[in-house]
């Protein structure tokens, strides 16, 4: 087809579209079906309409949200993933929860440098292009803030799945294994610890034990089909599979190696747990197994009366794979085994479902995960026994949703 001909076809199409729109407005002959909807009788945007796509305008409500009374400033705060609108195990990049200590830095990839230094035989300075030349891996892992659910320790406080469980996201991360770079730099026998530092204003840094770094940590530059998002550490972040979100240092700029940990503010003042007797626990890195029902939930009530519904949810463990998930409809008296969707991966969200014929009566629904180590997700009462009434971190308790006869769903805690 010549240029001229193609233009003619286009002109024809546009004209036809205009006619049809006029026709359907004129007609307005009742509902679709049997009538066509307006978009079935018109020409849509071309491929050049939206070079970078975005969700349907009807999904405007599906956004990250935060709890305004938690922090004095948005620059040192967290926002949550809308799990009620996440269909599968992958969190959309635009909805992945945020946690900042000094706001969101806009890192220029040309100015990005990654330094490997300290107790190594051959310190290294890499540009982004150089980092991306190293052998790479791609793996799907969740990242969860250990303060996920912190508000729910003393009581059921927030009537929302997103705000009680949304400080988690799961993505396919692509990048270089940290062991590849540590081998390249060369370790000594006392190179026992790594200090990972970000280039944000907080110069956020955490100490990590060397064996974890060599086991499965990676420096990721890819996230779900594109470059790591700025909110997640563009252009490169540390991924520490299964460990508390804070150690997955974003906007990474330095891997320093040393004989002992640095005892940074974020591993002493923060991300440590004060117990009732006045002593504290530090270095509680692993995220224990947890699960939650994502449908129904406070944001997604049962709006269509009694009948069939599919209970849906997500389960995960920082210690490995999900072995099984059990669901209770009666507040934990009896449980039924849920169906797990594949893939079931290491330190990754796993999707579960259970068919439910709702009789229209009040119900107390719960999910309980068992991971491959045999660890069983505890109740909030069991959690309180060790951690006391009002800790901050590590709330992986079984969530109870109260389904009312109206179909409304509330966050409750049970004795």
């Amino acid at each position: 087809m010549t240029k001229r001909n193609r233009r003619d076809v286009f002109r024809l199409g546009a004209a036809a579209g205009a006619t049809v729109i006029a026709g359907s407005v004129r007609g307005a002959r009742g509902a679709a079906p049997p009538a066509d909807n307006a978009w079935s009788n018109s020409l849509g945007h071309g491929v050049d309409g939206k070079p970078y796509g975005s969700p349907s305008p009807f999904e405007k409500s599906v956004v990250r949200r935060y709890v305004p009374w938690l922090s004095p400033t948005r620059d040192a705060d967290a926002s949550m993933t809308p799990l009620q609108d996440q269909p599968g195990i992958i969190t959309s990049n635009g909805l992945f929860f945020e946690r900042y200590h000094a706001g969101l830095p806009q890192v220029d990839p040309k100015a990005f440098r990654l330094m490997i230094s300290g107790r190594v035989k051959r310190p290294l300075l890499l540009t982004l292009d150089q980092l991306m030349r190293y052998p790479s891996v791609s793996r799907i892992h969740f990242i969860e803030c250990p303060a996920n659910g912190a508000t729910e320790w003393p009581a059921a406080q927030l009537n929302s799945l997103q705000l009680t469980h949304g400080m988690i996201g799961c993505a396919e991360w692509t990048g270089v294994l940290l062991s590849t770079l540590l081998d390249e730099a060369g370790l000594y026998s006392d190179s026992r610890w790594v200090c990972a530092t970000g280039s944000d204003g907080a110069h956020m840094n955490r100490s990590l034990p060397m064996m974890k770094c060599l086991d499965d940590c990676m420096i990721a530059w890819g996230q779900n089909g594109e470059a790591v998002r700025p909110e997640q550490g563009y252009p490169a972040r540390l991924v520490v599979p299964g460990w508390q979100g804070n150690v997955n240092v974003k906007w990474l700029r330095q891997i320093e190696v040393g004989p002992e940990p640095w005892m940074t503010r974020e591993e002493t003042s923060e991300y440590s747990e004060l117990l009732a007797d006045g002593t504290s626990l530090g270095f509680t890195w692993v995220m224990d197994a947890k699960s939650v029902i994502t449908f129904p939930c406070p944001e997604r009530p049962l709006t269509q009366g009694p009948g069939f519904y599919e209970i849906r949810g997500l389960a995960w463990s920082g210690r490995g794979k999900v072995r099984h998930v059990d669901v209770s409809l009666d507040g934990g008296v009896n449980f039924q085994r849920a169906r797990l969707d594949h893939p079931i991966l290491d330190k990754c969200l796993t999707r579960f479902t259970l068919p439910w014929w709702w009789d229209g009566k009040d119900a107390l629904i719960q999910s309980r995960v068992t991971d491959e180590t045999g660890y069983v997700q505890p109740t909030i009462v069991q959690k309180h026994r060790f951690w006391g009434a009002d800790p901050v971190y590590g709330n992986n308790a079984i969530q109870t949703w109260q389904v009312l006869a109206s179909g409304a769903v509330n966050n409750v805690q049970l004795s």
Partner: protein
Amino acid sequence: MLAGLALMGGQAGAAPTPPPGSPRGGNAAQHGAGIVSKTDLQVWRAEGDGNGRLGRYKPARRPGYYGIGTVPSAAQIAGWTIAVPPGGADLPSGSGTAAAGAAVYASDCAMCHGAFGEGAHDYPALAGGVGSLGGSSPERTVGSYWPYATTVWDYINRAMPFYAPHTLKPDQVYALTAYILNMNGVTRSDWVADAASVPLVRMPNRDGFDWSDPRPVTHNTACMEACVRPSSIRITSSAVTMHLTPRMTGPVDHMKSGQ
């Protein structure tokens, strides 16, 4: 083979081989031997080397195998190596007193942390609560909670003042460290903070932490039937009665009155 790799690696193949270790990063003593308790050091070493697994670790490749990247200069390494461990490695030269710190604090810090470190506008308190941790209303501050004084220097240097992080001079950071420790009654008003003195400060809660993770500490069972008596189930709290939840549909709810 080697030559080919060096070629692929570009400039890195030609980079000079640096002396073992690097000019920064510190040795074991500078990392806290003699300052950290023996118990804590033992725990850290076991964690760091994976209970001896590190000794058996076999690198997949020799150092420099890929030859990609350059060797940073001593000045480049020094500029970015700002983390200060309990032993004080990498503390710069300089010094400061509480009196000098009071002036910087009043102009750069008090608006958020309060004139006496009591905290303002919900920003964290920096003083108070010493001895409160085991009581009914524990207060976690630099003075009551932080195990090492080096962390005070390190954090002020890297992250404060909040709106202009890492812009203070070493003398100012030493002075602020002296001022905040003095506000907490940890050091005397004539104490001089410098690279030698800061690591030696014995913080009140130094030994208050267990750095070895005791979990799992909760032991549920995967019971399937008649797990609890139905009559024992009581709703102890319900979020719908708390009125703490922002609106979850429409534009983001900032919970500002009048919205």
